[in-house]
């Protein structure tokens, strides 16, 4: 249906410079996502070696060396500055969820889940990991505690995202406007199954269920990364196919006066 509307109004796609595209807001939000994830990847891995996660049973000397590394403080600063981009990226989902024929409860619960996830899963660990290099005199036991706190909130917080993604999955399945494909709804719910298994990091110190373990971390990553890419591809298609008459951007009204 959307294709036919676009075909009927050629001006909506052509004959207009990109910066006057009426979906520019959504495209900016969308393209912030690859920027955000690439920045995260660079900061997590080569800059600080925060990821892949270090072992919960690491030697205390290794923990101190890691926690006091200046690169870790720089990484935490960059991530704390950049975490706001997650709000921009999540806006892509929310604009599309708003078009679905489902209760607004799904949208609000998704939003709240995303906020809690960002605070617990991103900001808490940054504050923990940044402290060691900020002041050099902390006791080794305190650094060890911050290390545990950092990784537990970083990896153990995936439960917040279970709610977040669960709301998206259910909204897709219940939606009758077919904003996103139904198989994606099942894919979202399917991916959630692996996130339940992360609860084990609160119990296991080593083996497959520890925070650096085969099942609690590595298998989840293998499932999560392609899934996240596919979700964003579907979101991109939903933005592209959204008819212009469904956009909610306020238009400039010549002669408008204050009420």
């Amino acid at each position: 249906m959307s294709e036919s509307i676009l075909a009927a109004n050629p001006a909506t796609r052509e004959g207009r410079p990109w910066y006057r595209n009426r979906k520019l807001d959504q495209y900016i939000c969308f393209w912030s996502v690859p920027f955000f994830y690439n920045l995260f990847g660079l900061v997590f891995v080569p800059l600080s070696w925060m990821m892949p996660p270090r072992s919960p049973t690491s030697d205390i000397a290794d923990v101190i060396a890691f926690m006091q590394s200046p690169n870790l403080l720089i990484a935490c600063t960059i991530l704390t500055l950049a975490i706001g981009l997650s709000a921009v990226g999540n806006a892509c989902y929310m604009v599309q969820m708003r078009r679905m024929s489902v209760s607004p409860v799904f949208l609000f619960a998704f939003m709240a889940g995303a906020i809690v996830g960002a605070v617990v899963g991103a900001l808490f660990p940054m504050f923990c990991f940044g402290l060691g290099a900020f002041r050099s005199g902390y006791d080794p036991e305190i650094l060890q505690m911050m290390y545990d706190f950092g990784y537990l909130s970083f990896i153990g917080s995936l439960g917040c995202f279970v709610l977040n993604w669960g709301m998206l999955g259910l909204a897709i399945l219940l939606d009758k406007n077919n904003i996103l494909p139904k198989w994606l709804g099942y894919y979202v719910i399917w991916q959630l199954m692996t996130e339940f298994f992360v609860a084990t990091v609160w119990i296991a110190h080593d083996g497959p269920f520890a925070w650096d373990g085969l099942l609690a971390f590595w298998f989840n990553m293998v499932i999560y990364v392609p899934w996240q890419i596919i979700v964003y591809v579907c979101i991109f298609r939903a933005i592209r196919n959204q008819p212009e008459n469904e956009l909610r951007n306020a238009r400039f009204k010549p002669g408008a006066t204050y009420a």
Partner: protein
Amino acid sequence: MAITTADAEPLPDTNGNTTAPGLVPGEASMWFFILGDLLIFGVYFVCYMVYRGEHAGLFLQSQRHLDQGIGMSNTVVLLTSSLFVALGTEAARAGKAARATRLVGIAFACGAVFPILKLVEWLPKLGAGITPGENLFFMFYYLMTGLHLVHVLLGLVILGFVLRSLRSASTPNMKFIETGGIYWHMVDLLWLLLFALFYLIR
């Protein structure tokens, strides 16, 4: 999700001829979920076997704490339930809605016994201090049977929607009934594997 499948894609309700040659029974996107779910469980099963090989003594000793009687009862309950779902689907295909409702109702009742049996099994263990933190075997055990239990509960919700669809619609939505049935058979299949891996292999 159950509502969607019933309402979003109202299919021509034919009595028994919805499965055209070359098409899978039920909704195609549900198969996507089922194959994916089997893949995830498959990876966990393989990991379980690998770690079992590495810690054979620990796993064998821990397995002795499991009650094969309750495990067997769970298997019988689920298999019976699956049989009634299959019979109910056949009845719905033949246009006998009342009979299908009765059969799926029995399947639901059998399925509802499963979580109760799980509680009977888990609570004394947890009371005796055998928790997921006990050792690697019990972590696998609680996690995988727990995830399966979540599937059973979701399956009961779906069967509830199937019952509602059978009772309220003048002509049953076969696609939806088949989708619910396929999901329920998957839950059954997963339990058979769990039962074999945790209770039987010695």
